């Protein structure tokens, strides 16, 4: 090896060096990346494949291990025909759409306030990080106390305006709202901070020009701020949609999927079929179909991902 076999710095510079690209650096690159790729492949990609295989078979659990038999598409047929699965799909899709829409609107509002706030901005940001870092299960227990029909603060408050206190977790619609409130509390700060980052990159002179042209605050927001935030909002929406689609913790603790199975998301259904009914194949079919929906959504968003990578020119 010569002395310049390991020249750091820009690859472009290395490329134009006489003698072409030195071989050793790319070998080092693979040595550095291999452990990460190996761990990710073994523990995430391999199980995803495993899961697909499992969804096409009957899994027998025994004390010594497990075995696959009966290759068929029965699991999928059973899942697709199951009204419980359809209910879970409808709930998950509806919940994803509603929660992301609400969090996006509130997140933009909070970000607009944060942007204009001069004093105490740091304090408010710090406060907003606490729900983000909160253990979801703990906030779910807290909300289940607040929404408790016998002595919950929210039930008591609502009861002041109605003849008898409502059973918030007792009807599908109000249980849905309860999950929504808990999720909005935890997640809106996250959206707001992302949106704020987009807001502060907008050049002030654009606003000044708009003001000179006689644009009021309302039309400035719709015609200038919002279009300039497009990329930021797309990223926020993308990550929130993917997260919301996998929702598990909150319904598990707050509603147990109830009343009935009206607030049971796909992830909870899959988990229950696998670990409570011990029907691994069918559970895997639920999980695999959920993953497939997510994967298709990802493919649709791949352009957005690519744009992300492209921003800083992959070298």
């Amino acid at each position, binding site marked *: 090896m010569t002395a310049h076999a390991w020249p750091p710095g*820009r690859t472009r510079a290395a490329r134009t060096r006489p003698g072409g690209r030195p071989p050793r650096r790319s070998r080092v690159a693979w040595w550095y990346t291999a*452990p990460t790729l190996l*761990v990710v492949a073994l523990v*995430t990609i391999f199980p995803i494949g495993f899961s697909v295989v499992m969804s096409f078979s009957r899994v027998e659990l025994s004390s010594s291990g497990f075995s696959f038999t009966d290759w068929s598409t029965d699991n999928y047929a059973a899942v697709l025909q199951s009204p419980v699965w359809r209910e879970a799909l409808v709930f998950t899709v509806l919940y994803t759409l509603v929660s992301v829409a609400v969090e996006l609107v509130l997140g933009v509002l909070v970000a607009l306030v944060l942007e204009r706030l001069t004093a105490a901005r740091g304090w408010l940001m710090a406060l907003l990080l606490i729900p983000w870092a*909160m*253990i979801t299960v703990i906030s779910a227990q807290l909300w289940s106390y607040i929404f408790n029909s016998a002595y919950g603060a929210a039930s008591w408050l609502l009861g002041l305006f109605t003849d008898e206190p409502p059973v918030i977790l007792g009807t599908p619609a109000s249980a849905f709202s309860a999950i929504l409130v808990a999720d909005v509390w935890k997640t809106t700060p996250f959206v707001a901070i992302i949106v704020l980052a987009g807001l502060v990159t907008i050049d002030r002179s654009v606003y000044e020009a708009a003001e000179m042209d006689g644009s009021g605050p309302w039309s400035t927001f719709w015609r200038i701020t919002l279009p300039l935030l497009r990329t930021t909002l797309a990223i926020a929406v993308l990550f929130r949609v993917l997260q919301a689609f996998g929702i598990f913790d909150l319904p598990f603790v707050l509603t147990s999927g109830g009343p009935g199975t009206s607030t049971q998301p796909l992830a909870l259904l899959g988990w229950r079929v696998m670990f409570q009914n011990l029907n691994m194949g069918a559970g895997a079919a639920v999980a695999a179909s959920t993953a497939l929906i997510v994967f298709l959504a990802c493919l649709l968003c791949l352009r957005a991902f690519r744009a992300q990578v492209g921003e800083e020119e992959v070298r």
Partner: protein
Amino acid sequence: MRRRRVFSPVHLGAFVIALLVALPLYWLAVSSLKPGAELGSLPPRLWPQNPTTEHYTEAFADYNFARYMLNSLLVATVSTAGVLALSLFSGYALARLPMRGKRPILVGLLMISVFPTVSVITPLYLIEREIGWLNSYQGLIVPYIAFHLPFAVWIMRNYLLRIPAEMEESATVDGAGPTRTVLQIIVPQALPGLFTAGVFTFTATYTEFLMALTFNSEDAFRTVPVGVALFGAEFEVPYGTIFAGSMAAILPVVILVLVFRRAVVSGLTSGAVKG
């Protein structure tokens, strides 16, 4: 510039936001201090009449909360260390070294980082059952490392792209090998990136529920989220005890996030984000 007024819509908005965010946190704190009778009193009391620390004693003396916290801290700390060690080198390679297939690797990692956990939980469960890793620390640490690596790699790569290359060059002139260059030259400069990746990984692993619930259901190996979720008897949920334990359990992450809040905000705003 706008003049600052005492009462502006912005201040009112900020006040409302702060109130809405803080109120549930306040309720958690104050409920952990209420004696059992007051927890069920109507109308709810904003302040406990007879504040008590009995729930804290219960959570740590009668129940296993100390163990849950210890488990969570251990698993989260080791996972974070593993993620940082691996992502430092792969992030460096992906940011700085010439390599084929960077784009597919980066896009693939980004997609994995948002994949729903439930889709891999059964195969991992069966594998861990087969090799006897259920109800063990490594049974959580290894999947945690794998699932939080992709995001950390992205953070490290994005951060390292911004560091100027001069220092590395002079280290090479001095004859330092690649690994020594990374450890001695890159690490000190990449510290903010490491903080960001570290805080995100720690928070995510400390709060993770689905895998912990599935793999480590035995009481001695439960983490805080599992302990909190499965807490209580069939008919009566002991809210006071749960809240007291929860107050203690969220303290480490809250302190961590507040201390490193710049790192958290920079991570959230770096674009590639996982909540």
